């Protein structure tokens, strides 16, 4: 697993407090991990801070379904 994945996993888990083993690249953030829309936005802020991303646009957030989607986005935009 990539370093980015592990960091994403850690952040997501700090918001959701679920069994960390449940967080896999293919996990759906809403359906599998139980995050509602507010929690998802909270996680986004955490990701922006952790990866020093200025602002993840709403269109990009809407496209994020799985953990792998986050990892891809971060790897593309990390500064």
């Amino acid at each position, binding site marked *: 697993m990539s370093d980015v994945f592990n960091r994403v996993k850690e952040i997501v888990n700090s*918001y*959701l*407090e679920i069994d960390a083993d449940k967080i896999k690249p293919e996990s759906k953030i809403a359906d599998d991990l139980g995050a509602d829309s*507010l929690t998802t*936005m*909270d996680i986004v*802020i955490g990701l*922006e*801070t952790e990866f020093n991303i200025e*602002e993840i646009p709403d269109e990009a957030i809407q496209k994020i379904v799985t953990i792998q989607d986050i990892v891809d986005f971060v790897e593309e935009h990390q500064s």
Partner: protein
Amino acid sequence: MRRVVITGIGIVSPFGIKNDAVWDKLINGQSGIKNITYFDTEKYPCKIAGQLLQGEEDGAFHAEDFVSKRDQRMMDTFMVYGVAASQLAIEDSGWAPSSDHQYERTGVMVGSGIGGLQSIEETAIDLYEKGPRRISPYFIPSTLINLISGQVSIKYGYKGPNHAVVTACSSGSHAIGDAFRLIQRNDADVMVAGGAEAAICRTGIGGFCALRALATKFNDAPEKASRPWDKDRDGFVMGEGAGVVVLEEYEHAKNRGASIYAEVVGYGMSGDAHHITSPPEDGNGARRSMEDAARDAKINPEQIGYINAHGTSTPVGDQIELRAIKSFLGEQGAKEASISSTKSSVGHLLGAAGGVEAIFTAMALKTGVLPPTLNLDNPDEECQGLDLVPHTAKEKSIEYALSNSFGFGGTNASLILKRV
């Protein structure tokens, strides 16, 4: 008219979170006032408060015992206190709805004076330092006062009236009074009602310091700082926590064999129409509030055996309340009634004060013990001829007791409880 009784009490206070232990400390004359440890008080003229018990102390408050770490993200501290006290009160009452109808007839009315001040303070700093993007989506729902009621309703599935009261330091009393009316008027059978506050933070202490409302002469002897009606009083001492009761229609409570602390029989309200922070010299707002409560209870003021006063330990407010009480009780009534301020022990819990003080008033009726007014070493002239239960608790069997709460904006609330 439907009768309303208290069948559960939940308290989160500087004396802990266990009802019996809190009451024991109160009637044994202990003080919950200590040095503030939440932030560096060096630049603040007031350095003391009634914080909740911490760490390993018996009765210490641990947020995670009531609200998961995850859910704490969506609740300011005041909300966690309110949800915790509601849980304690509900468990104490034993009320567990089992049908849709019962869920729909159970409501929540827990207020606060200020609400999510700590989150507002912290978010403002984040906004200044990091910009608007870093504001949490939970910021707004974590600070709104009615979200205690919202959270309790969601947690327990209560689908009755979902409401909250905001009347500064009388929020808790108004919430209980309004919930009492809702049950009387058949809008609900059971109401979870009270108040919560968590303002021992930089803006909270700094803000009340700016008003010159806090005690500042006793930073080296915190337990002596809250001294209602004493000549050396110089302001109130802030406390924090929550006081919540389960109110229930009398037959409903009897049918399920619930144990009853006391009956709520009267509720009075008034406005001073005078000044944002000071009551009028003659205390007519406070007097009218008490008179309305007595009229509502259909009793004469002389029948009141105990008054749990607002008595905050401020120079002007204390005197005016006594003036109002004397005028309300009349000469004979004032000789016979006992009056005390439990703020001398736990401080002023602001929007939670009415909640915890209604609980203390109910306990006084139930146990026949009146909690003392601590630090009343040199009573003010206004105290002459009154029994203010100085220093030590007093055994006295009473039938009716009244609890006063007054708030900024010139708002007054009085509740009358009856021994059952």
